[in-house]
């Protein structure tokens, strides 16, 4: 492809990099990334992906913008309160970069729709905020062989890694099953420093871009742990678990599981 004058200026700092160049920028413009979650992690991640010139950015979120989101979900503004998050996100991206085709999904992701939604994308980003959806995304990406960029936050703690299909490991190698309700911190205990998802979401964008460009070392096989209070980044080995119920030697999971449905039977 030939870049327009505007694109040459817009992507100059990418094109200059030996690891990116015009060829890399073309890859980015041809790539399709699915961002699941348009909240705290999704906002910085989507912003950087949009600015980088990801050609197609899918954004999934059923939710609307609430005033309490704005402390960290930086692509929504005060005047967006009450709007669908994906609509607000689309406006923000288009304001930054008209090259990006934003596809919005105003629905909760579930076992019935996830395969259909992710099938056309090159990379999936888990920017969600709950365990059932995280396990669902992990399992779907395993079955559909999609690279998954994982990021998670709680209070002052952040985690990030990359799960590559076939190579492994997967999220279930790290944590085989979701924690039972009641053993995770209750709502009253929860909360999050607004900057924290900014840092982890930006790391997710970074990893997605590297996967598309095929450059550097991704976090695959490494769990990055960030402690915002002590300002410490540490790294743990993340190994493929032979006993993993999804990608291990004798798997027991062959289809998508909706943990959310368990609530019906919770006493």
């Amino acid at each position, binding site marked *: 492809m030939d*870049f327009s004058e505007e694109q*040459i*200026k817009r992507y*100059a*700092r990418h*094109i*200059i990099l*030996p690891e990116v*160049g*015009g*060829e890399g920028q073309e890859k980015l413009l041809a790539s399709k990334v699915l961002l699941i979650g348009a909240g705290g992690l999704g906002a910085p991640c989507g912003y950087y992906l949009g600015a980088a010139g990801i050609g197609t950015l899918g954004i999934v979120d059923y939710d609307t913008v609430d005033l309490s989101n704005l402390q960290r979900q930086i692509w929504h503004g005060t005047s967006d309160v009450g709007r669908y998050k994906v609509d607000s996100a689309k406006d923000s991206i288009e304001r930054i970069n008209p090259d990006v085709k934003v596809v919005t999904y105003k629905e909760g992701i579930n076992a019935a729709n996830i395969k259909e939604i992710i099938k056309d994308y090159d990379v999936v980003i888990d920017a969600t905020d709950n365990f059932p959806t995280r396990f669902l995304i992990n399992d779907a990406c395993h079955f559909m062989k999609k690279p998954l960029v994982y990021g998670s936050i709680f209070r002052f703690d952040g985690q990030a890694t990359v799960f590559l299909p076939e190579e492994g490991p997967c999220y279930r190698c790290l944590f085989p099953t979701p924690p039972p309700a009641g053993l995770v911190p209750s709502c009253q205990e929860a909360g999050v420093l607004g900057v924290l998802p900014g840092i982890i979401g930006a790391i997710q964008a970074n990893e997605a871009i590297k996967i598309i460009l095929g450059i550097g070392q991704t976090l695959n096989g490494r769990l990055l742990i960030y402690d915002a209070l002590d300002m410490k980044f540490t790294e743990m080995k993340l190994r493929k678990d032979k006993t993993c119920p999804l990608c291990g030697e004798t798997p027991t999971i062959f289809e998508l599981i909706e943990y959310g449905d368990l609530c019906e039977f919770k006493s």
Partner: protein
Amino acid sequence: MSEYKEKSELNIKGEICPFTFVKSKLALEKMKKGEILRVVVDYEPAIRNVPRSMEEQGHKVLSINKINETDYEIIVEKDGKK
């Protein structure tokens, strides 16, 4: 004028840095190893900045010449240092 047989020519008079290098690099990406590009610029600092960046990225700068009152040419061999 140079004694090299250029395969391609890029006239980017009016451009300033870093776009002089950005456009030179995009032109080089479309060429094959060993092919010669002649870049014409009229932004004087570019005759130092562009060759340095080209060399850093593995191209071989063959010559830099002032060709008239305002213009300069940079002759570069694609991947000449790889």
